[in-house]
């Protein structure tokens, strides 16, 4: 589904990603862990097509297509979803209207008609219930005055509505208390299928108790320095990142 080959990327001559290789297949959950400043969030942004970052070498291939020169919105239309670490506030546009616009723009790009209003309503209701979101919340302005936890839950709600092929969750666990974490994780797990995949980016092992990954990768200084199964996450939790950093030097 997603193949990242020797990816180098940076911003303003500053190299951040220095040769990332990653292969994600349908049905898989990959966790990417690493210390602060290792390049985790940059990788998430580059997959989503953020133009601030310049890809200097290597490529990202999604469903057999090179994503170089593909705009962020087109990537979304192809089924890539990024859950933002810091979702943006849009006053005057309700969560519902925003999600409707996102869904219908995607349908338009795929040559489909707008989703019928009753179908949209049903979907909104169903997904809101799944994420234990109050109906009133949906008529509030997008992210405006939301708590950290509400913003993250709203991200997963949008993901649930858009049903992406590949979801990249960038530090979705930060700012969540344990109950919210469980609800969010539950939402992600319910969306799992043999056809889609999830990349979970996190600093801590905590989230991985709830969203159990098939693979864990450790990123350090812009490279994946170690890959393994979920046991690797536990090992990191125990030993910290210094151990990886030392190994990387060797």
């Amino acid at each position, binding site marked *: 589904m997603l193949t990242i080959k020797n990816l180098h990327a940076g911003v303003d001559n500053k190299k951040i990603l220095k040769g990332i290789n990653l292969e994600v297949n349908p049905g898989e959950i990959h966790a990417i862990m690493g210390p602060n400043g290792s390049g985790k969030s940059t990788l998430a942004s580059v997959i*989503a*097509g*953020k*133009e*601030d970052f310049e890809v200097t070498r290597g490529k990202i291939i999604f469903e057999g297509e090179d994503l170089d020169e593909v*705009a*962020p*919105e087109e*990537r*979304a*239309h192809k089924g890539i*979803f*990024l859950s*933002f670490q810091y*979702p*943006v506030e*849009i*006053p*005057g*546009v309700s969560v519902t*209207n*925003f999600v*409707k*616009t*996102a*869904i*219908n*723009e*995607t349908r338009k*790009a795929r040559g489909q008609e*707008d989703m019928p209003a009753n179908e949209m309503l049903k979907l909104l209701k169903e997904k809101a219930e799944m994420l234990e979101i109050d109906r009133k919340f949906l008529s509030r302005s997008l992210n405006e005055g939301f708590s950290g936890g509400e913003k993250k839950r709203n991200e997963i709600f*949008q993901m649930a509505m*858009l049903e992406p092929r590949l979801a990249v969750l960038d530090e979705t666990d930060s700012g969540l208390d344990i109950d919210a974490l469980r609800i969010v994780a539950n939402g992600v797990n319910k969306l799992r299928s043999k056809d889609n995949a999830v990349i979970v980016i996190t600093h801590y092992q905590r989230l991985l108790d709830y969203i159990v990954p098939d693979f864990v990768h450790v990123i350090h200084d812009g490279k994946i320095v170690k890959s393994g199964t979920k046991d690797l996450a536990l090992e990191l939790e125990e030993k910290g990142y210094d151990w990886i950093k030392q190994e990387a030097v060797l």
Partner: protein
Amino acid sequence: MELKDKLIASFMAFENEVDLTHPVHEIRSEALRNFEAKGFPGRKSEAWKYTSLERLQKIDFSLFPRQDNALEYRDVKKYFLHEIDTYKIVFIDGVYSSYLSETTHDGVDICLMSAALTKPMYKPIIDVYFNKVASREDSLVSLNTAFAREGAFIYVPKNKVPRKPVEILHFSTGSETAQMLQPRNLIVTEENAELQVIERHQSLTDNEVLTNSVTEIYAGKDAIVDYYKVQNDRETASLIDNTYIDQKGKSHVSVHTFSFGGKLTRNNLNFYQDGEHIDSTLKGVTLLGEKQHVDHHTLVHHQQPNCESHQDYKGIYGQRSTGVFNGKIIVDKIAQKTNAFQQNNNLLISDKATVNTKPQLEIFADDVRCSHGCTIGQLDKEALFYLRARGIPEKEASALMMYAFANNVLESVRIQELKQRINKLIAQKLGVNLGFEL
């Protein structure tokens, strides 16, 4: 002949048509003398630094409208807020159109300035209010006063509320290659009265139009007045709007100015608070492109204690458009406990657009809260990426953000159908269908 000379020369012809014994004529003559002495303001004057009237003064404007131009309602329906029932005072090339209007004398007077200036029954009101709050120093106001003859006259007596909002519409048909119009409006709302007004100037062809309008609004004690200015005119239409508001104690007056088009638009909006516990609201959304120019000059004069004023102007400037915001707040020494708020935020969406913004605070009282802020910026790239990553294309994402930027100004619009209309206009101006009913 330059416009100034032509105007002065034509005053004699104007006098032939009006009653010279009427007391207003003395006011007219005095006003003409002031205009004659001062002429059009030039860019050397601080208040006109960024707005030049030079080009307009070289145009050979026709000053007296033809009396016989007519329009069919179906051709101009879209300029009315036809979704709701309204009173209508409609002018075609400066001449009242009884055919398109709907006036009333049922408890309130919603009619014509020409009637108010000539009929004896209105003389007491004219004596008390005509040209009282409007400036006698400003040369353009004086110019309007000198030729004051027609416009809207609204009188809402004590405790009265008209059944529906009033629309004041000025159409220009282009029957002259260039035409100057000088409507004069007088609006008196007495104690505990209420009124909603929507005003629009609309040119129907690409012939040049210059409108120099003066509106005086008097809000009595506890009165509530909402005034909406819809400025979405053609590239060949220029408007100098001079609005003066006198508020008595506990009155609430709001003026919303929606500047979406026109070659040159100058909004001189002046509030004078003459009482305690007054609330004044000045809001504006400016959305310009091409080579359009808008200049908002606001004044709020706090003359009494315990009053509030709220100013919020949002501007979005594209292409080669230019904008000015000059917001002056004066707090007299006596006006303690004043709460004056002023904000002006601007988005430049083109490299060639320009905005000049200037807060001007003159505070002589020591126990007041005055806050002001102005910003000039561009669309937040981070936010734009967020929307695009959700599948919303760049153009629509930008529009959504601009809409969100301007949105809070619309929240205080109390006529729902007007709010929807403005929302649609914004979407249309931004060139997108936002995919949902705003």
